């Protein structure tokens, strides 16, 4: 990294590190709420009254609604109320779904997490061995071919990738349906694995392209370390050195990358869910955008942002626990 962090490397203990990172995370979440609150007011300068009461509401009704819900207060007071409601898990009411936003998201989020988790696991099962294979055969035909493949996949919009998969596996071969399984619970969705194949594959290919690159790069860095030479000099075989030592050391930064990858993955979920009509949070967000259902839109953003902040906090924590050298750098 930068020269400064190299010269000053505080070997902070894990408690101080954790306290500082948690404080930072709280600040980041506060800034996110500020962004969301500002967007809400940019979108609805008059407040949500018309969205809730309908377009035909009279001025008296609007005024009464605003007064009852505190939308006639100064902005800073409205922001504090907004925060207070958030702390109690209250994200407001949807304009169109006739239920609280927290309920709507609560129904969709588990399905999105299930899809994301399956996609991530499938991707890592492929990406980690792929990266190790490429690193140990660096510059040879296999490595070059896989690098080129990943490069192209990385540059392909996921909806185009998904569409090609649909054409090949659904239209030509008729192996898998082009539509994701429907259902209101995770169990119902998972009970139809054939329908999950193409959405999971679309997601996984993109994640593989990213993570096999990380794994390849981390493994190459580790292969040039002194401990590898020492082990080799002592007569340990390449296979043992790689499987016993290099893989373990290379996995740390790659696992940590998972935490930072969350926003990218959530951003991709909205596309995959719309393409395959998967009933998750991405699709909820997309349909809320079509109907300008701002409480739902901003509720989704808040949930995702909090998940991301917690994810990168965990990533830093894992890295700090496994590799104390990073405690100073990450602050």
């Amino acid at each position: 990294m930068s020269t400064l962090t190299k010269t000053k490397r505080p070997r902070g203990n894990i408690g101080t590190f954790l306290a500082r990172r948690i404080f930072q995370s709280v600040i980041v979440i506060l800034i996110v709420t500020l962004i969301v609150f500002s967007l809400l007011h940019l979108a609805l300068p008059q407040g949500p009254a018309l969205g809730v009461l309908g377009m035909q509401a009279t001025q008296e009704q609007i005024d009464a609604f605003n007064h009852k819900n505190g939308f006639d207060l100064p902005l800073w007071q409205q922001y504090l109320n907004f925060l207070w409601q958030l702390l109690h898990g209250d994200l407001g009411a949807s304009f169109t779904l006739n239920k609280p936003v927290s309920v709507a998201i609560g129904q969709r989020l588990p399905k999105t997490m299930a899809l994301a988790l399956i996609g991530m696991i499938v991707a890592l099962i492929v990406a980690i061995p792929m990266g190790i294979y490429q690193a140990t055969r660096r510059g040879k035909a296999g490595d070059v071919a896989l690098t080129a493949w990943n490069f192209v996949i990385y540059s392909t919009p996921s909806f185009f990738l998904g569409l090609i998969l649909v054409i090949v596996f659904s239209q030509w071969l008729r192996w898998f349906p082009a539509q994701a399984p429907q259902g209101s619970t995770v169990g119902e969705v998972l009970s139809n694995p054939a329908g999950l194949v193409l959405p999971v594959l679309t997601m996984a290919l993109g994640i593989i392209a990213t993570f096999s690159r990380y794994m390849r790069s981390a493994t190459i860095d580790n292969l040039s370390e002194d401990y590898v030479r020492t082990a080799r000099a002592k007569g340990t075989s390449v296979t043992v050195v790689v499987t016993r030592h290099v893989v373990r050391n290379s996995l740390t930064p790659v696992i940590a990358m998972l935490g930072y990858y969350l926003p990218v993955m959530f951003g991709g979920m909205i596309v995959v869910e719309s393409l395959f009509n998967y009933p998750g949070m991405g699709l909820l967000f997309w349909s809320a955008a079509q109907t300008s259902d701002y409480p739902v839109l901003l509720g989704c953003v808040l949930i995702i942002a909090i998940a991301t902040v917690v994810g990168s906090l965990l990533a830093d924590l894992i890295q700090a626990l496994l590799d104390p050298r990073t405690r100073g750098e990450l602050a």
Partner: protein
Amino acid sequence: MSDVTATPAAASAPQPRTAKPGRRALARFTSNRLAVFGLIVLVFFLLFCFLGPLFYQTDQVHTNLAEASLRPGERGHLLGTDDVGYDVLGRLMIAGQTSIIIGLAAGVLATLIGSFWGAIAGYVGGWVDSVMMRIVDAGIAIPATFLLLIISTIARPSVPLMIVVIGLVSWLVPARLVRAESISLKSREYVLAIRAMGGTHSRAITRHIIPNSVGTIIVNATFQVADAILLVAYISFLGMGVQKPATDWGAMLTSGISYTYAGAWWLILPAGFCIVLIVVAFNCIGDGLRDYFDVKGRLK
């Protein structure tokens, strides 16, 4: 103030520290076959999209149902026509203009904002740095597609608006990269010397920190353009892109999706391959420039 310019900084023209810097750097760039490939693809697309319409003239404003849904080659339409009668080859050209213009402009805008933000945060340090970087963290926590969809519900998407909006959601990564550069640069002797001689902070940032980070900035800008072109496509796929009769490659591909089962491959594949090719091209150029400037812009 003016005598400060006479210091041996010469940072305004950052050159690799070799004997014949220009030529050797050029050789380093051209020896990277991928980068040359990327450059050739880019030049091809620029000619295709911006000069192509002069030689292959088609009406891309008025729909013509009499000519709708023709297969490639029918009635002189090399790549067929779409569902409302636009010639697909001609439409690829004007769609490419939109994608490339938005991609380039948004990528440059994001890089500019991010570079200044990061340079200032890293240079000033302390609590200012902390606040500025927490704002970056907060921005990164909100996926760009989500933010873009929200904004497109507030304002009708147009080319200038999409440039500004994509630029405003993409500056965060360059900000982090340039901040790291800025932290390492600010304690160098020549920057300290400028300060000791009474040079202002803004001078140190604009004349020394940013020019010396130019490698990082340019390499990242190339990747930013690639990402911006992808973002344009995603936004169009989600139905919030530029409005007809204007179009971009993502919008062309998206409107072809409903004809997938009818076998109308020419409505999907050409536009899709254009996106993939140009994004690959920018990523290749970025890789080449990274070798050229010898910086770590993205993970290897």
